C-alpha cells in the first residue's frame, strides 16, 4: 500500500477492451461468445489492484489478454498500453516473463519434470540465477533442499510459495496473480497475500484476480468489480464499509451485502452467459433500480468520488 500510488502515471492502461471467442456449435454453424466487453482498467507502480467477480465473469481472460496468451479463436479489440507505449502482440511476446509476470492459479502450471529451483532460476534474466533463487527461497522460508524437489513432492503451501517466488525472481514491474489462493487454509492465504504486498512495496504493480472479496479488501489499494465481462465499478478499498453506502454500483453493493459477516443477502437470478448478452446494462435484469433506460442503453463509464462506475443511476 504505497503512498505514492496515486501520483505516478499508470504502468498499464486498458481501455475499451473486448474479447470474443468463435466456436463451432454444431457442424459448421459458428457462434460467438462475448467474454469481455468494453472494459477499462489501469494500474500504477506500487499499487495492488484487485479484480473481483463471479466465476465465469471473464477475470482470467483479462489476464490472458494482457499477457497475449489467448487462444487463436479469440478476437480482441480496444487498446492496451504498457509504460506509455501501445501493447502490441509483438511487444507482449517480448515483455512476457520479463516485464510482465504471471502467478498462475494452479500448481499444474509448474513443469512436472523439472526441479523447482531450476524453474525459478529461469525467471532471472542475467547470469546469477542460482544466488537469486536461493535468496528468494530463504526469504519465503523454503528449506535449502527444496530447490532439488519436483513439483509433486511439494505440499500445497510450498508449491504456492514457489509460484510466487517465480514472479519475485523475475524483474517484472507488473505482476498478475490469477486466483493465487483458491480453497487454501487461512494461514497460507495470509502468507500469500503478505507476499503480494511485499512485491508492491518494492514498487511493482500487482493485479490480484480473485473471487474472494475479503482477501481483496485485506490486500488491495483499489478494487475493480467484474460482472459479465466488464468492470462495473472501480473503487478505493476503503469504500467497502458499513452498509456499502459509499459504493457506486448496485452489484458492488450486492456483493458487499451478501458477505456472511454483513447481511448474507442474495440477489435473485444469475449472471448472463457470454453467449447471450442483451443490449443495455448487463446487471439490469437483476437490479432493483432498473429502468427502461437501463434495458436499452449501455451505461458509459463515469468518474464519481474517486472511483469509476458504469451505471445510469450512480451519483
Amino acid at each position, binding site marked *: 500500500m504505497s503512498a505514492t500510488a496515486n501520483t505516478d502515471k499508470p504502468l498499464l492502461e486498458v481501455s475499451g477492451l473486448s474479447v470474443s471467442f468463435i466456436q463451432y456449435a454444431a457442424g459448421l454453424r459458428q457462434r460467438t461468445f462475448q467474454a469481455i466487453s468494453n472494459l477499462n482498467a489501469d494500474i500504477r507502480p506500487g499499487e495492488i489492484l484487485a479484480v*473481483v*467477480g*463471479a*466465476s*465465469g465473469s471473464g477475470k482470467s481472460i483479462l489476464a490472458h489478454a494482457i499477457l497475449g496468451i489467448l487462444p487463436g479463436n479469440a478476437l480482441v479489440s480496444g487498446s492496451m498500453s504498457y509504460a506509455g507505449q501501445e501493447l502490441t502482440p509483438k511487444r507482449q511476446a517480448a515483455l512476457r516473463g520479463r516485464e510482465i509476470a504471471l502467478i498462475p492459479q494452479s500448481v499444474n502450471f509448474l513443469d512436472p519434470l523439472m526441479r523447482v529451483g531450476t524453474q525459478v532460476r529461469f525467471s532471472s534474466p542475467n547470469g546469477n540465477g542460482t544466488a537469486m533463487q536461493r535468496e528468494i527461497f530463504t526469504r519465503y522460508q523454503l528449506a535449502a533442499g527444496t530447490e532439488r524437489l519436483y513439483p509433486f513432492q511439494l505440499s*500445497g503451501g510450498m508449491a504456492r510459495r514457489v509460484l510466487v517466488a517465480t514472479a519475485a525472481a523475475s524483474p517484472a514491474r507488473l505482476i498478475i496473480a490469477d486466483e493465487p489462493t*483458491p*480453497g*487454501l*487454509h*487461512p*494461514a*497460507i*492465504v495470509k502468507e500469500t497475500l503478505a507476499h503480494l504486498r511485499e512485491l508492491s512495496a518494492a514498487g511493482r504493480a500487482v493485479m490480484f484476480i480473485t*473471487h474472494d*472479496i*475479503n482477501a481483496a479488501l485485506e490486500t488491495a489499494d483499489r478494487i475493480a468489480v467484474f460482472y459479465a465481462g466488464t468492470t462495473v465499478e472501480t473503487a478505493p478499498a476503503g469504500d467497502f464499509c458499513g452498509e456499502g453506502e459509499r459504493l457506486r454500483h448496485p*452489484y458492488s453493493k*450486492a*456483493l*458487499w451485502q*451478501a*458477505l*456472511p*459477516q454483513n447481511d*448474507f*443477502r*442474495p*440477489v*435473485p*437470478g*444469475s449472471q448472463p*452467459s457470454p453467449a*447471450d448478452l442483451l443490449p443495455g446494462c448487463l446487471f439490469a435484469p437483476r437490479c432493483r433500480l432498473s429502468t427502461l433506460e437501463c434495458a436499452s442503453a449501455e451505461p458509459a463509464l463515469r468518474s464519481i468520488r474517486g472511483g469509476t462506475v458504469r451505471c445510469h443511476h450512480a451519483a
Partner: protein
Amino acid sequence: MRLEAQNVSFRYKAGPWILRNLSLSVMPGEIVGLTGPSGCGKTTLARLLAGFERPDAGKIALDGQPLPAAGYCPVQLISQHPEQAVNPRWQMHNTLCESYLPDKSLLEELGIKNEWLKRWPNELSAGELQRFCVARALGPQTRFLLADEMTTMLDAVTQAQIWQAVLRLAGERRIGILLTSHDSTLIKRISHRNIDLTSIF
C-alpha cells in the same frame, strides 16, 4: 432420526491413520460447522458419513441403522468440486433429474436457468454447476446434507443465494447439515454449533 459416527477410524489402504476413534452426531434440523486445517480429515469424514468410504473400525449410523446399501441415500454429500461430481457425458437435465424431479420454484430460487438444462457440463461455470449439484441433493428423502466447502469457489452473491435456498428448505424439512469451510464468518453466520476436528481426536 440422527446421523452418527461411532468410534470411527479410517485410513486409505495402508496409509497413515486419517481419523482415529472419532465420534460425533448431528440431529435433525441442526446445522453443525466442522473446522480444522487442510489435510486434517474433514473431507474424509464427510465421505464416510455419506457412505462413499467405509470405516476400518467403528460405524456410521442413521437412526441406529447402517446407511442403506441401495436406493436413494438419505445422507447427501455436496463436494467442493462440482465439475468432478457430474457426469461429463450427460446433459444437465439428466444429472438434475437422476433421482427425483425438482420443482420449478427450487430451480428459480437457486438461479438455474431453463436453457442450462440442455447444456453439457463443460459449457457451464463451476458456480452454475454447483447450483445443479445442490438441487440434485435436495430430494424429498434427504434427511442430512454434508456441505464440503460447498461455496468456497463462488462469489459472495452466489454463495448467499445457494445457502439461503438450502437453509430455507432445511428449516422446512428439518434436514440436518454438517458443513466444512475455511471461512469462519460463514460458519459463524449459519451454524448452531461448531466442531474443531483437531480437538476431538
